[in-house]
C-alpha cells in the first residue's frame, strides 16, 4: 500500500448523479506521484484517445482536484486542480493553498474527479461517510464572501453532533460569478482570497453547474513509511523555513516596486513598459496603512508569507484581500496604470469576490485598455471610458466580464480569443497586443531585461504557456521547482533542497531523489503535458512552428528605464528552444520522439504524434 496516500479517489458523475471510488494502480501513483502529474495521467486515460474533440466547457471534460503524498505532512498544504484547460486546450496543474486538502485526506480521499453536468447548481459535501451531491441553487450567483458565509453555516449545522456542538470550519473550493458564467480564465477560489488561477478551471466547474466542493474529515492522515524520520525532518524543515526572513517579512509583495525599478520586468500598461519608479507603490506603503495581518498562513505552513490588507475608511471601506501579493499587485496595479495602493487593494478584493484570476483577467482588462488607448475599442463599444489608472472603470469592467455583459461577453473569452474576435469585428490586427503564450496570459515577470528569473524560453517552451510558476529552464532543475511542488502538492515557497527529497522518501518509502525526479518523473509529466498541447482542439490548435514562442510584445524594445532598448532576441530564443527540446528528448519542433516516449513508459502517446512528425 503506497504510503502518504489514502488510496482512494472520489469519482463523481454529475449527469447520472453517481458517485464511485477509484483505486489507481500503485505503479501509476509512483510514476505520476499526485497532483499535477497524476491529474494529467487520469485525463489521458479517460479522454486521451479523442482529446482534440473534447470541449473543455462541455460535460465530457473532467474537473479534478487532487492532493499528493506530501500534502498535509510537508509544510504548505495545497490542492491541485486540473482538467482540460479552456484556455490552452492542454492540461495545467493549478494549485491553491487551503485546508480543503488536509480535510479531504482526513476524510479518506486523495482527490475528487467530477465528470458530466448537473441539471441545477450543486455542491459536493465530502466527509468520513463519503460524498453527497447537494443543492446549491441558493448559492448560485453569490460572490465569494457570501458563498463562504452561507456554505460555512450550512455545512457546520449539517455536521453538528448533539452534545458536541458545531464542527470547526470545513475546507472549501468554490467559484464566483466569473466561473459560473464560464469566463474562460476564471479561477477556482478558496478562503476568500486564495485562487487556483491558471488554466481557467473555474469555468470548468461553472460549466458543470458545480458551485463548490466542501470537505470535512475527522480521520487521521494516511500512514507514512518512516514515521520517526518524518517527525525529525518535519522539525528540521520548519527550522529552516523560519529563517527565510525577507519572504516572511514581505511575502512576494516587495516586488511591486522592485521588480520594476530594479529588474525592470514588471508589466506596466499591458506590458508596453516594464519599468517604473513609483515609490508609493510597494511593500511599506501597504504595510502602514492597510495591513491587518502580516503573517497569514494556511495549514502546516511555516513561511507564513501572506499579508492581509483591509481598507478601513472611505468609499471602499471593508475591502479585505491578500495584498500585496506580487502578481496581483502588478496586474491590478501598474499593468492597469494604477499606482495607488488603495486602488489596487480594492481591485484585488473585487476580483476575489467575483472569482476571477487576478493575473489572467488583469491581463485581459489591460489588453482592452490598450485597445481603448489606440482607438480600436471606443467609449461606445465599452459603454464608458477606460483610461489607464481609472480604478472605478476597471472595477466596472471586471463586473461586466464576470457577468458577460456587453463587451464583457467578448473579453470573458480570455485575452487570446477576445483578440481573435475583435480582429474579426474591427478588421484590425490586435493579436500583437495580446500578451499570452498558448492561450494562457503571461505572469508578471518579463524577459526583455534579462534580469528576472524566466529565461527567454521560459514561457515559449513551457506546456503551461504563460504560467510564471512553471517556466522552462533546463529540463532538469525546472522539474524540481514547480513540477514537483504541483505534484507532491505542497507550496513551492516551502520548498527546501535537500530536505524535501528526504521528506518524500520518508513519507512514501519510495526511492525518490532530486536526480530521479528531474530526469524521470518530471520529464514524464512534462512530456505528457506537451502532448496535450500538441493535440489541442476543439476550437484552437497550436502550431509548433509559430506558437511555441513569446508574445509579439516581448520582441518590442523596452521604451524606458535602465534597460531601454532591450528585447527578446529571436535567434537566441530559437537556439535555446531547440536545445531544450533536445534535452527533453523531443524533435526540433517540440514533438516527443518515439524513443523518449518509450524510455518514459509513455509509448501509448506515440500513435497521435506520428502524423505530426515530419
Amino acid at each position, binding site marked *: 500500500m503506497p504510503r502518504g496516500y489514502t488510496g482512494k479517489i472520489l469519482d463523481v458523475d454529475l449527469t447520472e448523479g453517481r458517485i464511485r471510488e477509484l483505486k489507481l494502480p500503485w505503479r501509476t501513483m509512483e510514476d505520476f506521484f499526485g497532483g499535477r502529474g497524476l491529474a494529467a495521467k487520469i485525463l489521458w486515460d479517460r479522454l486521451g484517445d479523442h482529446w482534440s474533440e473534447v470541449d473543455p466547457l462541455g460535460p465530457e471534460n473532467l474537473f479534478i482536484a487532487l492532493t499528493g503524498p506530501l500534502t498535509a505532512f510537508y509544510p504548505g498544504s495545497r490542492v491541485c486542480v486540473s482538467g482540460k484547460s479552456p484556455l490552452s486546450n492542454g492540461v495545467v496543474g493549478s494549485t491553491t493553498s487551503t485546508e480543503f486538502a488536509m480535510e479531504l485526506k482526513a476524510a479518506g480521499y486523495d482527490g475528487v474527479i467530477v465528470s458530466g453536468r448537473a441539471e441545477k447548481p450543486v455542491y459536493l459535501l465530502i466527509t468520513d461517510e463519503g460524498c453527497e451531491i447537494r443543492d446549491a441553487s441558493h448559492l448560485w450567483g453569490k460572490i465569494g464572501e457570501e458563498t463562504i458565509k452561507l456554505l460555512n453555516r450550512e455545512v457546520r449545522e449539517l455536521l453538528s453532533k448533539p452534545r458536541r456542538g458545531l464542527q470547526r470550519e470545513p475546507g472549501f473550493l468554490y467559484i464566483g460569478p466569473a466561473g459560473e458564467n464560464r469566463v474562460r480564465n476564471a479561477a477556482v477560489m478558496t478562503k476568500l482570497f486564495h485562487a487556483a488561477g491558471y488554466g481557467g478551471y473555474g469555468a470548468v466547474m461553472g460549466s458543470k453547474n458545480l458551485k463548490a466542493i466542501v470537505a470535512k474529515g475527522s480521520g487521521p492522515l494516511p500512514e507514512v513509511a518512516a514515521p520517526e524520520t518524518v517527525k525529525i525532518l518535519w522539525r528540521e524543515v520548519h527550522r529552516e523555513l523560519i529563517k527565510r526572513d525577507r519572504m516572511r517579512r514581505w511575502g512576494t509583495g516587495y516586488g511591486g516596486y522592485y521588480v520594476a525599478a530594479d529588474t525592470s520586468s514588471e508589466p506596466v500598461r499591458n506590458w508596453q513598459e516594464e519599468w517604473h519608479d513609483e515609490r508609493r507603490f510597494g511593500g511599506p506603503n501597504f504595510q502602514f496603512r492597510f495591513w491587518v495581518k502580516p503573517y497569514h498562513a494556511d495549514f502546516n505552513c511555516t513561511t507564513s508569507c501572506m499579508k492581509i490588507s483591509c481598507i478601513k475608511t472611505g468609499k471602499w471601506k471593508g475591502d479585505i484581500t491578500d495584498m500585496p501579493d506580487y502578481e496581483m499587485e502588478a496586474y491590478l496595479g501598474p499593468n492597469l496604470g494604477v499606482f495607488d495602493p488603495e486602488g489596487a487593494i480594492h481591485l484585488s478584493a473585487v476580483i476575489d469576490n467575483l472569482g476571477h484570476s487576478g493575473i489572467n483577467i488583469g491581463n485581459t482588462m489591460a489588453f482592452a485598455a490598450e485597445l481603448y488607448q489606440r482607438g480600436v475599442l471606443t467609449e461606445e463599444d465599452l459603454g464608458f471610458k477606460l483610461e489607464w489608472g481609472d480604478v472605478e472603470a476597471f472595477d466596472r469592467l471586471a463586473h461586466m466580464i464576470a457577468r458577460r455583459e456587453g463587451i464583457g461577453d467578448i473579453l470573458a473569452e480570455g485575452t487570446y480569443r477576445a483578440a481573435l474576435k475583435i480582429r474579426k469585428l474591427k478588421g484590425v490586427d490586435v493579436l500583437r497586443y495580446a500578451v499570452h503564450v498558448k492561450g494562457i496570459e503571461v505572469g508578471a515577470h518579463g524577459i526583455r531585461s*534579462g534580469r528576472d528569473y524566466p*529565461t527567454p524560453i521560459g514561457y515559449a517552451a513551457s506546456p503551461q504557456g504563460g504560467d510564471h*510558476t512553471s517556466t522552462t*529552464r533546463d529540463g532538469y532543475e525546472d522539474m524540481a521547482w514547480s513540477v514537483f511542488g504541483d505534484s507532491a502538492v505542497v507550496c513551492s515557497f516551502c520548498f527546501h533542497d535537500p530536505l524535501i527529497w528526504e521528506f518524500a522518501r520518508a513519507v512514501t518509502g519510495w526511492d525518490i531523489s532530486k536526480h530521479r525526479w528531474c530526469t524521470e518523473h518530471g520529464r514524464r509529466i512534462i512530456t505528457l503535458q506537451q502532448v496535450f498541447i500538441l493535440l489541442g482542439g476543439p476550437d484552437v490548435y497550436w502550431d509548433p512552428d509559430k506558437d511555441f514562442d513569446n508574445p509579439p510584445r516581448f520582441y518590442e524594445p523596452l521604451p524606458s528605464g535602465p534597460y531601454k532598448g532591450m528585447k527578446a532576441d529571436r535567434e537566441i530564443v530559437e537556439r*535555446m528552444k531547440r536545445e531544450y527540446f*533536445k534535452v527533453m528528448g523531443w524533435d526540433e519542433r517540440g514533438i516527443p520522439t518515439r524513443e523518449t516516449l518509450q524510455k518514459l513508459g509513455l509509448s501509448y502517446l506515440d500513435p497521435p504524434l506520428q502524423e505530426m512528425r515530419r
Partner: protein
Amino acid sequence: MRVKVLVFGELSIHLGWSLDLELEEAATIRSLLKLLSDRAGKSIKMDDGVTVLVNGSNISLLKGLETELRDGDLVVLLPPLSGG
C-alpha cells in the same frame, strides 16, 4: 575556440548580458567561470544558486565544472529560481 556566453539575472550587471569569448583549446566550465569572475570582479560560485547550461544542458548532467567546451558552444548563466 569561440564560445558565446549569455548572462541572466543580477550577474548581467557585472558582466553584460552577452559575451563572445575566445578561449584556449582545453577550456572547461571551471576555467570559463574563473575568467568571468575576474571580469566581474567577484567570484561566481555554484552555491550562489547560479545554474550553468551548456547547449541547454545543466552541467550537473554533464561533467559539472569539468565539462569541456567546444567551438560554437552556447553557455548560459541563470540566476536562482524563484517565483511569485
